[in-house]
């Protein structure tokens, strides 16, 4: 099954909407609640990253009996140093975003902790693609 969600950069009022919609799908599909929890944390953080940093983006999700594959591709400033961005506590979020309680530099590590596979590719000035995989079978 394939799902797509369009994400607007900067629209914090809608941040988490895609994650919420997809969570409902996972519940309807009777996916193991533990896997739903992990998927939702990883997806939400990645969704918020698009809202906080990019101009716009698309989330494409494929689910079959083996895995949940999430591809988040955004148009945005890109990440100059992915290794640095992965470090806990490192953030380039604006003061306004931080005041809301975002931008604590924990998002990518939350994704890593909950995904079975995580791949980030980025081109400065163009955008970023984040791929997250959650395996449905041990």
């Amino acid at each position, binding site marked *: 099954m394939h799902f797509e969600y369009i994400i607007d950069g900067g629209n914090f009022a809608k*941040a*988490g909407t895609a994650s919420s919609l997809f969570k409902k799908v996972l519940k309807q599909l009777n996916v193991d609640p533990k896997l739903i929890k992990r998927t939702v944390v990883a997806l939400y953080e990645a969704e918020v990253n698009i809202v906080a940093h990019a101009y716009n983006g698309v989330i494409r999700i494929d689910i079959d009996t083996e895995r949940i594959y999430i591809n988040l591709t955004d148009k945005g400033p890109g990440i100059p140093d992915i290794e640095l961005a992965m470090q806990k506590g490192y953030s380039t979020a604006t003061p306004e975003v931080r005041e809301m*309680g975002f931008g604590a530099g924990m998002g990518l590590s939350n994704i890593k*902790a909950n995904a079975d596979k995580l791949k980030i590719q980025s081109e400065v000035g163009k955008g970023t693609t984040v791929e997250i995989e959650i395996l449905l079978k041990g």
Partner: protein
Amino acid sequence: MKVKDIVDLLGLKVFSGTEGLNREVEGGYTSDLLSDVMGHSEAGQIWVTLQTHKNVMAIASLKELAAIVLVKGFEPEPDCLAQSNIEGIPMLGTEDESFEITGKIYNLLHP
């Protein structure tokens, strides 16, 4: 212990989400960093924070938290309040600071 028991015992204000007052409280989490709550809170916990915007409700819903307690007299923003009613997750309020209200809730949950 249910959300409404904590509301009654501690005299908390109920802003919205009254449908969820019968939710069972399994524990609590106190933090103003959204990714911290996203990454480390557990379903059924009551969340103590000073963040008043709609995104707290998104997190509470995704993590299936029991309720949110706003500290120091803060009030939820209108769209947060509306979302709380949709989700049926209560937004509560206290004049206490985070440290104080967290201690009081902890004592109720761990008598």
